[in-house]
């Protein structure tokens, strides 16, 4: 790592750190969003009306309010309930809560695609509803929603530029710092933009590969 320090000019190194921070924040936010999103989705398709209403309200709120505002609220709210955490955590929580709303809808699409007969067969073999969800429905919903979920990762990555506002040293914040010292805003901001572009491109490629791998077992139904 220290070799890297010698080879790279300081600005490049700082941008690299920023890019890594961006990636980490995005991944954590995405993961949190998936966990919360799965729960919200299950509530959304639940048989109990209250759960459905709560889930629908959650989705409506977190999709209807700008992410920036959500991040600001989380950032100022956490200290109020005694959680004095570094901005990184507020960022991940904010991203996660917001992403969950979108992931819940993506997953719902995944659930809706599953033919009804499969859950029925599980019922006939005396699976409990929890077993049916865990072993039959969720694996397939995740597979079906995989393209949308991967797309969500790319969206989170772009949205993560907002965490610079709540003090996270991500790519955007680091490029701002460089411009403050070095001036030359066009050059540095365009470089930052390009880095985002490259990361997104790589993610899109990974996504396509993942999609292909997941569909291996399915193939085309033979006669």
């Amino acid at each position: 790592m220290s070799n890297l320090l010698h080879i790279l000019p300081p600005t490049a190194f700082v941008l690299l750190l920023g890019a890594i921070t961006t990636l980490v924040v995005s991944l954590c936010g995405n993961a949190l969003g998936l966990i919360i999103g799965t729960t919200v989705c299950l509530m959304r398709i639940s048989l109990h009306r209250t759960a459905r209403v709560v889930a629908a309200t959650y989705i409506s709120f977190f999709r209807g309010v700008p992410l920036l505002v959500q991040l600001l609220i989380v950032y100022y709210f956490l200290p109020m309930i005694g959680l004095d955490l570094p901005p990184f955590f507020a960022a991940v929580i904010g991203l996660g809560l917001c992403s969950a709303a979108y992931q819940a809808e993506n997953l719902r699409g995944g659930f809706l695609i599953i033919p009804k007969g499969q859950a029925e067969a599980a019922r006939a073999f005396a699976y409990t509803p929890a077993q049916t969800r865990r072993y039959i429905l969720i694996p397939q919903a995740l597979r079906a929603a995989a393209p949308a979920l991967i797309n969500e990762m790319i969206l989170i990555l772009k949205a993560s530029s907002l965490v610079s506002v709540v003090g996270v040293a991500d790519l955007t914040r680091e490029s701002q710092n460089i411009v403050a010292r070095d001036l030359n805003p066009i050059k540095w901001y365009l470089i930052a933009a390009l880095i985002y572009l490259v990361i997104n491109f790589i993610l899109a490629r990974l996504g396509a590969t993942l999609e292909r791998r997941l569909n291996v077992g399915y193939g085309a139904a033979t006669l």
Partner: protein
Amino acid sequence: MTFSLSLLGQYAPQLLKGFELTVIVWLAGSLFAVVLGFALGCALLSKHSGLTFPVRCYVEFFRGTPLLVQLFVAYYGGPSIGITLSAFTVGVVGLGLYGAAYFAEIFRAGFASVPAGQIDAARSFGIPVWSRIRRIILPQMLVLSVPPGITLLIILLKDTAILSIVTVPELTFQVTGMTIETFAFVEPFAVLAALYWALTELVSFLGRRTEYRLGRYLK
């Protein structure tokens, strides 16, 4: 939690101005985005790679990079090459260029979704090119573009909040200023959230009505 409504009343004129600006920037930026996006979408239909390649680059850049960074390039970078624009202009233009890339894709997909059979039928009846475009292709393409278009408009509405970071004095900017002065943070932001929520729900609702009316025309 000390939240007094009087505080709200005190700042009401600023908040109102901010709200007004949010709507104006949103509408202006969206108009820009739709018009430019339409032109770009049409360009993408061309068979000349000399035309499609640069447009494709444009679309990939503006869709693949964060809006915030794009705004930084325009707002902070502009002066360094001699173009000093007001925050408002940067906001509208920034939102417009960003939105245009997405609308370009929506319109391109809309064109592609018009059933080829209809175009063939029109040609076989000898209907001239411009009429074909005006009466058959365009109406259907527009109807297909409405649902994703409305979704995009709502996204642009929410993204106006980001403009506050480059000092466009819209609603979020005003509320942030208010919290800095009053040291009350969560409550004003919560009200801000509620306002956006109401606004986006309203636009969604109008959007669904429009889709419904258009859907009836299709049937």
